[in-house]
């Protein structure tokens, strides 16, 4: 069994954040029915790769929501769903008559999850956003930079992944709440608040000291320590991350490095000294790593008990890392066309009722007929007419 066996999710989400929420629910056994439009954007092969990783385990139906017959189908599906989720900007579902007040009339204990950029209330509720703009507003873009350097930020929409993962926690909490109280509810997830909640202690510190945050490159944001950073290795764009907090860490590092003269420098003997001279230490460590192989250096340092790791690129991660491979992080999934596609699996392990990839990404509208006939009892003849009229596809 899986924890969400028997739970049905009607999924109006698109792009990335919403699909991340519903993929976790699908991994956990929910029947996720993804409502799509013809010409929905995707990232190539819908079965595997990026699209397949976002849509794994879901069913796809195509509804033309400009047609009242399609809206009626959507409402009838909502009436037999436990969770209805969307990530349109705040007003879209209301305009479609699929907002919480409308849905609870057909399903009184429905859990309605609205994932918008800014939330359902407040002066900016109708502002438009994407992951990169939310990261800019919440400090990530400006503060992820070298000291005195121009902004760099994430190269991707981390906020979509963070907000998506948090969205799945919101759904699980609401399902637990419904078990205990019998009540469904509206969940208002603002992507801005989701990423703002993850900035961390910096926000409290600024509230108290009124100071201006400045970028600190790769310096530690947890316990103070040096060296703490990312150092260039031999080869094309190869790097290693090394973290030294304590004197014991430093001793282990010095031993693993073969005790070059600079590791005996008294200025580096204490945590405070290493932090005071961090810039010089960074240069010395970088000189030491520069001619070395990143993976081999990682192994030497880890064998000595030092936190160190290659800065993994896509190939390191997907084709070379023995740890992710051993844990089955990436899974090969057969498709009904006789292909096998590779997909990212659930990134955590439940020992007794494991989450798992139940199916590859669906083709567009792959399950329209099966959903309409088995869940709503629509006859084959009716489906043919709806298809001919462009109501479904």
């Amino acid at each position, binding site marked *: 069994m899986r*924890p*969400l066996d028997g739970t049905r999710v009607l999924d109006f989400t698109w792009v990335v954040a919403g699909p991340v929420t519903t993929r976790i629910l699908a991994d956990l056994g929910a029947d996720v029915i993804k409502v799509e439009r013809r010409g929905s954007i995707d990232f190539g092969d819908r079965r*595997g790769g*990026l699209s*397949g990783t976002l849509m794994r385990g879901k069913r796809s139906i195509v509804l033309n929501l400009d047609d009242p017959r399609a809206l009626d189908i959507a409402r009838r599906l909502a009436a037999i769903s436990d969770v209805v989720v969307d990530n349109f900007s705040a007003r879209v579902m209301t305009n479609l008559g699929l907002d919480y007040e409308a849905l609870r009339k057909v399903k009184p204990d429905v859990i309605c999850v609205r994932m918008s950029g*800014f939330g359902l*209330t*407040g*002066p*900016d*509720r109708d502002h*438009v*956003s*994407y992951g*990169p703009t939310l990261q800019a*507003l*919440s*400090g*990530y873009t400006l503060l*992820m930079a070298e000291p005195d350097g*121009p902004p*760099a*930020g994430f190269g*991707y929409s*981390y906020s979509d992944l*963070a907000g998506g993962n*948090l969205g799945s926690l*919101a759904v699980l909490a609401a399902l637990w709440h419904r078990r205990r*109280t019998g009540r469904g509810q509206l969940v208002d997830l*603002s992507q801005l*608040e989701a990423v*703002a909640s993850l900035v961390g202690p*910096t*926000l*409290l510190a600024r*509230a108290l000291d009124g100071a201006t945050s400045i970028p600190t490159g790769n310096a*530690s*944001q*947890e316990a103070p320590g040096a060296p*703490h950073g990312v150092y260039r290795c031999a080869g094309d764009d190869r*790097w290693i*991350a090394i*973290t030294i907090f304590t004197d014991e860490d430093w001793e282990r590092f010095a031993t693993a490095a073969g005790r070059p003269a600079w590791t005996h420098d008294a200025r580096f003997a204490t945590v405070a000294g290493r932090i005071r001279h961090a810039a010089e230490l960074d240069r010395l460590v970088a000189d030491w790593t520069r001619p070395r192989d990143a993976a081999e250096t990682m192994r030497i340092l880890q064998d000595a*008990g030092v936190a160190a790791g290659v*800065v*993994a*690129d896509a*190939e390191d991660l997907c084709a070379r890392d023995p*740890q992710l491979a051993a*844990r089955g*992080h990436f899974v090969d999934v057969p498709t009904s066309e006789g292909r096998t596609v590779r*997909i*990212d699996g659930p*990134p*955590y*392990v439940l*020992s*007794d*009722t494991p*989450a798992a990839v139940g199916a590859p990404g669906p083709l567009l509208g792959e399950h329209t007929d099966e959903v309409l006939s088995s869940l709503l009892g629509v006859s084959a003849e009716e489906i043919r007419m709806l298809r001919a009229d462009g109501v479904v596809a």
Partner: protein
Amino acid sequence: MDASGPFAGVRVLDLCDEKGALAGKLLAGLGADVVLVEPPAGSAMRSIPPFWKGAPHAERSIFFWFYAAGKRSIMLDRGTAAGAARLRRVALDADVVVTTDAPAGDDLRAVNPRLVVASITPFGRSGPYRDWKASDTVAQAMGGMLYVNGHADGSPLRSLGLQAYHQAGILAAVGIASALIARDVTGRGQDVDVSLQAAVAGALEHVPGFWHQARLVHRRQGTLHWTRYFRVGRCRDGWVMHCTLGDWTSLIEWMKADGMGADLDDSALEDIKTRQAAAERIFDALDAWAARYTVAELTEGAQLRRIPYAAVRPPEALLRDPHLAARGFFVPIEHPDLGLTVPYPGAPFRLTDAPWRVARPPRLGEHDGEL
């Protein structure tokens, strides 16, 4: 409205250091009774800066405040027979143990078969790297997050905030909630095994997918987003995030009204795929135009036209954001011992029938008499 939160009545023993502390914080926000089990010297998080008023003090770590908000604290020495026995007694009545010390979780599993035991470790509890060490930055590196952040000619950059730890904390909470739901059916607890590295890998977007489907290795390219629809530009008074999705026609008309943008007035660019290919040329033209505006003028004008522009702000701008203020995102929490009221960041999402709970962090051993 249920004022007590969805996980009211669920007791969580929190044996986490900073690597897993967000899990308990999230569950406390959702109403669980989260009990932080601290050694006599206090959680290691209490010694992590910054400190209120600067000097190290167990009750003044702002780092600890953030991660321990809403938790209770008991103090016991697990190294002594009495301490270990007390922990086992407390575990008898608990529903969940969340720990960054996996063997401690195994010991408690034997006490109570209904326990959900979640461990957060650098690489997970199986596999060749199961005993390797990681910091947040090392986990970000090995999970693939770091390589794609930074300027093309510079070093890869770690995130703002401890995002490897945060993703692991979120996934631990997801796993715990799932295991509680399963326990209602099976009557048994189970183990939740969370790896920092895998949590990071699970919070990537394009990196693994394009390797799987095209053997493509995406690199870092400064502020140019991998989709090539976003790049940072410079206004008169600060940085702005440009976006070429949204209402392109309105954007071009706006530029033309300013006597600029002639080189972008090209019908081919109405297609988003063409804009993607021409990203550098487009953003250079947008930069030349943006330089005449302030950040506020440009972002307000863009939002009026349904173009998703945003200011590139420091995190503390959130504290003064009128929209967040109207929604009550920050919750003022009193620290009575210090005569201080601190605005804590609030709910990451809102369950309208079961509100998020924010409360001050506990003093060391504050709740020893209650458990």
